[in-house]
């Protein structure tokens, strides 16, 4: 597959601050790619560098094989949907959408046809003559999409496209965006701090933290096999059980118990954390757990009812765990003070480098 966007050793410094540190990334043509990370992690700067709104301090950036590093934004075959949409307040919807084509001096007849098409695509027919301020947030978002897509960019960049919408609208737009991307077949790169949004929409996710690209993979990979404690902690929730690698595929936990775990190629003696998702924790009454699995005895500290699930805080003499049990009729419930045993399937855990972070 040809790369739509390729970053090699891309670094961005603002004065003494390194905003993006030596990022290598290849985004395939036609892919729906999410850059995910907490605020200030460098994801927006990375997007802005692809757009040409910021220029890299070092490294190479190609779009469909063509080096674009030093090119200004108006010379790049990409378009951006800005976080606040940045619609031109003095222009009508129609003129907003036509802006890019007019700047490229596209013939008048074709401008009209393509603008009408784009407005139809985002279902804003009838709104052509309105001004942006006369539209709702969701409609403004569609105008921003149409204004970008009408240019048939090779890559569409979206900066937190749904952040300004309320929850209901956001969920609707998630589905729409995904359907739209399939329909137009353009590579979408979007930036978000919302892990659920990234997991549900993206074909692949790049997780960024502290200016670095930490992990790239399909949503399942990122969730099931996080490469670091940071990634595990940022994507969903996770418990971390401290331990050391005893031998290949065996970890000795801090309480002395040895458990089977996917240690990959870590050497014996390496300090690690075992990542265990709350919904993967199995809770049984004391001694009701199967015999042939890793298990820990503890006490229920607190129980929280969430409607669709119960969340328990479980106490052990060396750590605390969070467990999330779906609210099914067959599911046993526990109360604070109950003595319980916790266990998990061997494939429910991931091993990440231990210590801080």
């Amino acid at each position, binding site marked *: 597959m040809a790369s739509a966007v390729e970053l090699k050793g891309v670094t961005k410094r603002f004065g003494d601050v390194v905003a993006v540190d030596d990022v290598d990334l290849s985004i395939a043509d036609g892919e729906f790619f999410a850059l995910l990370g907490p605020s200030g992690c460098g994801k927006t700067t990375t997007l802005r560098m692809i757009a040409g709104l910021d220029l890299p301090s070092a490294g190479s950036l190609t779009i469909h094989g063509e080096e674009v590093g030093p090119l200004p*934004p108006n010379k790049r075959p990409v378009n951006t949907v800005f976080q*606040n949409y940045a619609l031109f307040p003095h222009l009508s919807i129609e003129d907003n959408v036509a802006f890019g084509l007019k700047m490229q001096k596209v013939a008048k007849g074709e401008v009209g046809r393509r603008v009408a098409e784009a407005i139809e695509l985002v279902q804003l027919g009838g709104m052509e003559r309105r001004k942006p301020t006369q539209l709702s947030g969701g409609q403004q978002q569609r105008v921003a999409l149409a204004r970008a897509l009408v240019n048939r960019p090779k890559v569409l960049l979206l900066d937190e496209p749904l952040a300004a919408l309320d929850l209901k609208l956001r969920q609707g737009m998630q589905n729409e965006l995904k359907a739209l991307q399939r329909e137009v077949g353009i590579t979408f790169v979007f930036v978000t701090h919302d892990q659920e949004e990234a997991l549900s929409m993206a074909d692949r996710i790049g997780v960024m933290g502290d200016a670095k690209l930490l992990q790239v993979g399909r949503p399942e990979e990122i969730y099931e096999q996080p490469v670091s404690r940071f990634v595990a902690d940022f994507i969903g929730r996770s418990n971390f059980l401290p331990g050391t690698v005893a031998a290949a595929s065996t970890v000795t936990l801090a309480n002395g118990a040895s458990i089977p775990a996917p240690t990959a190629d870590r050497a014996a003696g390496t300090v690690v954390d075992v990542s265990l998702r709350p919904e993967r924790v199995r809770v049984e009454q004391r001694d009701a757990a199967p015999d042939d699995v890793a298990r820990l005895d503890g006490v229920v500290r607190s129980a929280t009812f969430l409607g669709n699930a119960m969340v328990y805080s479980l106490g052990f003499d060396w750590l605390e765990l969070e467990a999330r049990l779906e609210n099914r009729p067959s599911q046993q419930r526990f109360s604070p003070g109950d003595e319980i045993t916790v266990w998990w399937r061997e494939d429910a855990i991931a091993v990440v480098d231990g210590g801080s972070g």
Partner: protein
Amino acid sequence: MIRGWTARLLGGATGLVYLFLYAPVLLLVVFSFSADRNVGRWGGFTLEWYREFGANENVQSALAISLQVAIVSTLVATVLGTLAALALERFRFRGKKVFDALLYLPIIIPDVTMAVMMLLFFTWSLDLVDTVTGFQLRKGIATVVVSHIAFNISFVSVVVRARLEGMDQTLEQAAADLYASRWQAFRHVTLPLILPGIVGGALLALTLSLDDVVITQFASGPGSTTLPVYVFGLIRRGVTPLINAVSVVMLAASVLLVVLSLIAQRSREPGRATTE
């Protein structure tokens, strides 16, 4: 009933303030229609003084000079002031803060100081031209125009900057992202959005130029007497009803320009409401 008392007291004070502010204006307007040659004595209604305003050659030539000076200085100051505002608002460069402060200085410099500065500057620079090139230049309309440009640049750039500050900068980035060159982005996005500020600034500059006496007096030479300077000269020879009429016309023009300036500046805030 303290409430009633306070309200009455405040109402009375407010009335007094307005009386204080507008009684002179009212008197001026009323007596500009008085037929009696002695100012302050009502001699029946007449339009004689306005007729004289239209007929008096000195007044008419002063008015023509005033308009020339005001229009030229406003055009130049608007272009330069807008460019200065753009530079200070959109670019980062060494010593920006200093330039920023220096640009606003003419607004707070007392008129007399500014006038003396101008006098010195013109005397010195015209002498310099004389010694270097042999051309004997004199103060005249050109020097008045230059002095008006000098103080108007500051006012225009203050007004334009206020508008630029309120403009969302991502709009310019969006334009660039949509294939606009720098010039196209300015022409199609920035300029239309700050135009109300530019128009407001220009109208303000026009007003200030038409009203200025002190600086003009120091910068002008023979044959470059503007209307306010002419009126000021007349007053020294005693107030006549003609002066009242001229003053009323100038007052009306100023009020009209300031109102237009405010309307222009108030027109829709740029790029603010888009995210709501």
